[in-house]
């Protein structure tokens, strides 16, 4: 089976400082991978390199495109990469306002990706937007309201709807539950799990919340100072961590 995403030796430096160094892994269709590590461990740098927001200094990010099979997204042309990022890829930001247009209605936010790929029938766009609002448990009657009138959890769900409406195959998530109330987090996690299963999505989730990765991720990578110190099955890494840093990370979590 061809990996959906094959990351090979990704390195990013900020001057003398290492963002992430020599990171490699394969992600297969339907797999969810978590990346954990403390602030500054390089997990967000890595995510941004993979999603095309940052240009790595070395390495490849090979994505199995629908049309032409595996292609290195680092060296592909910018139009091609931007096309990927609004069709087959999705990016869920930690802060919903970074991923939403706050001055545009919920329907317009969800519809934008459809219009970006050429949908020109208002009725169809609106129907799809409404359908997606319901799928992320937002009342369809709010389709014309702006996200500024939404709660934090609703904004995050709207961001997810906006990202998933074009049926992407790979979702990048940067701390998707960060900054949300615990009860809202749970609802979002449940929603994400259902969507991942029903749509056969692959996802890469950056977080520092070990409980989130345990529930969402099949596999886990632990990063420290830009390096991957341990990788494996999520429950294996969390229950039987091998590296000193992973052990520290797991043992540092407060028990409820």
């Amino acid at each position, binding site marked *: 089976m061809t990996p959906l995403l094959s990351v090979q030796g990704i390195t990013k430096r900020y001057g003398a400082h290492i963002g992430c160094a020599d990171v490699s892994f394969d992600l297969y269709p339907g797999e969810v991978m978590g990346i954990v590590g403390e602030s500054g461990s390089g997990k967000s740098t890595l995510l941004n390199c993979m999603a095309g927001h940052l240009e790595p200094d070395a390495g490849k990010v090979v994505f199995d495109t629908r049309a032409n099979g595996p292609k290195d997204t680092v060296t592909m042309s910018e*139009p091609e990469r*931007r096309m990927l990022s609004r069709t087959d890829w999705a990016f869920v930001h930690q802060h919903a306002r970074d991923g939403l247009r706050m001055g*545009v209605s919920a329907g*317009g936010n969800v519809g934008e990706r459809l219009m*970006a790929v050429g949908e*020109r029938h208002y009725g169809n*766009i*609106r129907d799809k937007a409404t359908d997606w609002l319901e799928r992320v448990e937002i009342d369809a009657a709010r*389709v014309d309201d702006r996200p500024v009138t939404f709660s934090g959890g609703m904004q995050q769900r709207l961001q997810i709807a906006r990202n998933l409406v074009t049926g992407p195959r790979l979702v990048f998530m940067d701390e998707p539950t960060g900054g949300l109330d615990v009860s809202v987090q749970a609802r979002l996690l449940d929603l994400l799990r259902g969507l991942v299963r029903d749509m056969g999505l692959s996802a890469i989730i950056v977080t520092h919340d070990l409980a989130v990765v345990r529930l969402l991720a099949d596999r886990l990578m632990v990063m420290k100072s830009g390096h991957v110190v341990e990788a494996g099955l999520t429950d294996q890494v969390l229950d039987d961590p091998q590296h000193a840093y992973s052990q520290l990370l797991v043992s540092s979590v407060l028990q409820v």
Partner: protein
Amino acid sequence: MSEYNFAYLDEQTKRMIRRAILKGLAIPGYQVPFASREMPMPYGWGTGGVQVSAAVLTPEDRFKVIDQGADDTTNAVSIRTFFERTAGVETTTKTTDATVIQTRHRIPEEALTEGQVLVYQVPIPEPLRFLEPRESETRKMHALEEYGLMHVKLYEDISRHGHIATSYAYPVKVEGRYVMDPSPIPKFDNPKLGEMAAIQLFGAGREQRIHALPPYTQVVSLDFEDHPFEATKADHPCGMCGALDSYLDEVITDDAGGRMFVCSDTDYCEGRQAAGFVGEMNHQRAFSVQPLLETEA
């Protein structure tokens, strides 16, 4: 005014502006940056249009200026006078007689012909600006033809008003490539943009951009399949000349709710009246003229 160069601007500046104009004509709809000069009038008063006019005027030209269709408003009069004094060119109010027409917010009703140049005053040339504030990003969007956002604006219109409520500065796609803001002309004028025989030049002074449409360019107004573009106007005949096909201004005539609709293109309206067309309210000779007539009677 011998202390000024012909048409106010020095020759090097005009050369620079002409280059921008030529580039704009070569890439229809593309916004060409240019080094806009300080002009002896405030931004918002047509400094972009004035610089473009100055760059294309020759001593043989006949110059016309309209503001919202009218030759007799402050803005039109002052710009016309400006070029009378700095270029000494002949001026006219007749659309058919003019070789260069500078306009704010209208396209003349009379079809323009080959050899004529229409210069638009443009406040904000970037159609994506209100949705995407980053210039770096809008440039990239133009470069990569990522115009989905433009439809988001129209989508918002329909979701809020039930129809596309954008009635001026209605975005268009030029030759199937660049999305362009046609300046704040009413969307009634949009169909005239395409396949026009005259050259159309757009100057934005404050924003330092020039874009252009060469003659006979394809210009399509953006829309949705189920909400097609419509060139709308007030559903009335002109009160003065009875025209049914021209864009109308609504004029309040008294304090008691009295109003009338008249052609916004004054030259067109006067031409029709001279040819004997009379609108329903013309017998009153509206405005302050009316009491005078009564005294005479």
